[in-house]
């Protein structure tokens, strides 16, 4: 396995380190691969390693007792996941799944301890990464707990449905998220909730409003 030094330097954990230190860290790294759909980490399981995505994409998510999935983060090349259990020693707080073929670089918990002790600059970088992660998660918590996003998404659908005359606007989930003041993941969940309520039907690239009154009720109930 050849861990690319330039790539290693681009990982936020290792920015600002000298080539000599990076070369030492490189010796601790092991490679792991996964295919689309493979579960890399299970929520609640013990955890022994921190992972960086070298190529591909991993989603980190939690699943409710009813089987509903909430994506917490999408991890792209250079980004890390499973940071929290490696530092606090508790089980994985979320599951991680490969969204396609992925190559991961891993560092075991004990090797990470050695790196942090020998290279305090890495500890400072870790602080930055974790602080940024907390900020992102606080924003998600705010969306999920305080804001009535479902009502706002319902309102956006009603406002953009058009009357059959002339071209209708066509919106991405990202655009709906920007309009609702939330993130894409929460819009996806809201659309599923509206579909479960029978107000809409997701029909490939169409969102079909099947019950306009029910959708209006959603706006009033949640907005």
């Amino acid at each position, binding site marked *: 396995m050849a861990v690319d030094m330039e790539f290693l330097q681009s990982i936020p954990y290792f920015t600002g380190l000298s080539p000599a230190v990076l070369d030492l860290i490189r010796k601790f790294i092991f490679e792991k691969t996964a295919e*689309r759909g493979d579960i890399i980490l299970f929520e609640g399981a013990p955890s022994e390693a921190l992972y960086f995505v070298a*190529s*591909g*994409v991993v989603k980190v998510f939690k699943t409710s007792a009813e089987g509903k999935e909430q994506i917490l983060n*999408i991890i*792209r*090349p250079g980004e890390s996941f499973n940071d929290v259990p490696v530092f606090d020693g508790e089980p994985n707080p979320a599951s991680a799944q490969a*969204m*396609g*073929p*992925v190559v991961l670089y891993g560092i075991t918990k004990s090797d990470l301890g050695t790196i942090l002790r020998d290279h305090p600059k890495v500890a400072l970088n870790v602080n930055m990464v974790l602080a940024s992660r907390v900020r992102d998660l606080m924003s998600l918590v705010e969306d999920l707990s305080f804001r009535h996003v479902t009502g706002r998404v319902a309102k956006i*659908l009603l406002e*953009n*449905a*058009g009357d*059959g005359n002339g071209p*209708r*606007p*066509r*919106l*991405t*989930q*990202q655009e709906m998220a920007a309009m609702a003041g939330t993130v*894409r993941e929460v819009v*996806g969940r809201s659309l599923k909730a509206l579909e479960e309520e029978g107000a809409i*039907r997701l029909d*490939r*690239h*169409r*969102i*079909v*409003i*099947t019950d*306009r009154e029910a959708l209006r009720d959603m706006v009033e109930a949640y907005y």
Partner: protein
Amino acid sequence: MVEMPEIDLEKCDGCGLCISVCHCSALVMVNNVITVIETEECGWCGECEAVCPLEAIACRFEIVIEERYDGS
């Protein structure tokens, strides 16, 4: 013609993450350019859009109202 995700080639840097997550091989690299192949297999899962770090790929939804038989 099958509706397919749209790629903004001005924004796209050809990283290929969208190709790696596509379930139906609708996205391919042709001469270092991400190219969309029309296919009925595309279920509009939106994962290509979700993983793109540059927001260069768009799965747009048309929002339509289903007319009821009673005309309401």
